[in-house]
């Protein structure tokens, strides 16, 4: 377990819906892979200001920083921890400047 984010390695993330007995359930035709692609797309918007990016790596994710440094991460909680280390700008949901950046990146 990551002490910093409270995420359990190797267990379904609390947010996963497909194939997660502890999840909230959802569309029967939604696959874990489909969920993951949505997640990756959304998270990459947030990692954009820090010039970092995640991509699918089976049951894990690969985080790539602006210098090309990569890190394999288990879950969303780990993404934030590692992105703080290798990204140029941390994801801070309460930082208005950060929110403006991600908002402008969409337009």
């Amino acid at each position, binding site marked *: 377990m990551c002490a910093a984010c409270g995420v359990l390695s190797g267990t379904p993330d609390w947010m996963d819906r497909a194939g997660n007995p502890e999840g909230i359930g959802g569309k029967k035709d939604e696959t874990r892979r489909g969920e993951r692609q949505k997640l990756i797309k959304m998270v990459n918007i947030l990692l954009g200001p820090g010039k970092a990016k995640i991509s699918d790596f089976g049951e894990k994710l690969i985080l790539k920083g602006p210098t090309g440094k990569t890190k394999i991460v288990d879950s969303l909680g780990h993404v934030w921890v590692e992105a703080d280390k290798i990204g140029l700008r941390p994801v801070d*949901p*309460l930082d208005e400047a950060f929110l403006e950046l*991600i908002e402008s990146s969409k337009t």
Partner: protein
Amino acid sequence: MIKNDERIPVTVLTGFLGSGKTTLLQKLLGGREGAGVAVLMNELGEVALDDLYIQKMTETTLVLKNGCVCCSMRSDLQKGLRELIDGRSSGTVPPFDRILIETTGLADPTPIAQTLVGDLMLRRQVRLANIITTIDAIFGAGQIDTHPESMRQAAIADRLVLTKTDIAEPEQIRQAREKIHQVNPVAVLLDANEEESLWTQLFDIDPFNPKTKSTEVQAWLKCLPKIQTAGSRRFSDKTGRIQQYHQEQHKEGEIQTFSIRTETPLNWTAFCIWLSALIHRYGPQLLRIKGLLNVPDALGPVVLNTVQSHITPPMHLEEWPSEDHSSRIVFIVQGISPERVEYSLRCFLSILENS
């Protein structure tokens, strides 16, 4: 989705120095049901004598050495829990169906929750139950004002037990209740001397138990109108979707309770990304978050419950408690602006769900 949880519930009993934790414990363990409770206590000078008394009452008491259970002794806590569980299995410890951890008077109870989920072996055997905080009716209001530890203990609780009401003046009790309501209006407030159903409220019902989640949600939902009228203000946002209808400023300016309500069903992935990022960055300041969420395609209304960085797997109710199907989230935070939280959620949902 888990419907029954057979893991051993772990109740956390905390409260400021001299607030009556041990007296409450004696009262609870002295009853018929007390025989099924294993107790983990930490040893500081303050409680050493109390330990002796408690041990006379229950054979299943384990005293942790070396100080405060909340910070320096997480490994000791893991070890103590394992000893109890293994001892029960092997028959060296009398049978029990519940564990109670009593913290020191200065402890922040939240690392205990982290310990319970952080140990994969323990996580399969135990689960968090209520966090109970005792508050002295005579000195409690003042302690909350002057001691940050006391304020955090009150803010983080599921159950607040007002003690010494039999010797306190009515005005002192009124002030204590008022202060408690300011700090944590969504916890169940009990009187240690009057509550006949003390055991039921403290042990039989808790927010992390799939069987009692509905009762628990309905209890805090009932508090929402009270929160609204207590100095609330209402403002509209750009999209009109999310309205924060309560903001309560305490004179300390540190701990605040507020709620966010949205009529639009929540995009689960976008919401979880926001919550995860918020908890990563501000976990220690997010004392409690309780929510009832309308998530499209979920099996029912989703119950959210967090204690600082600890997120329990969200559960769902079989049906909505009322005709109101809006998502409602209550936050108890320290040093975070409610406006920023509301604005942040609105931005994340708007940006991510349209991506």
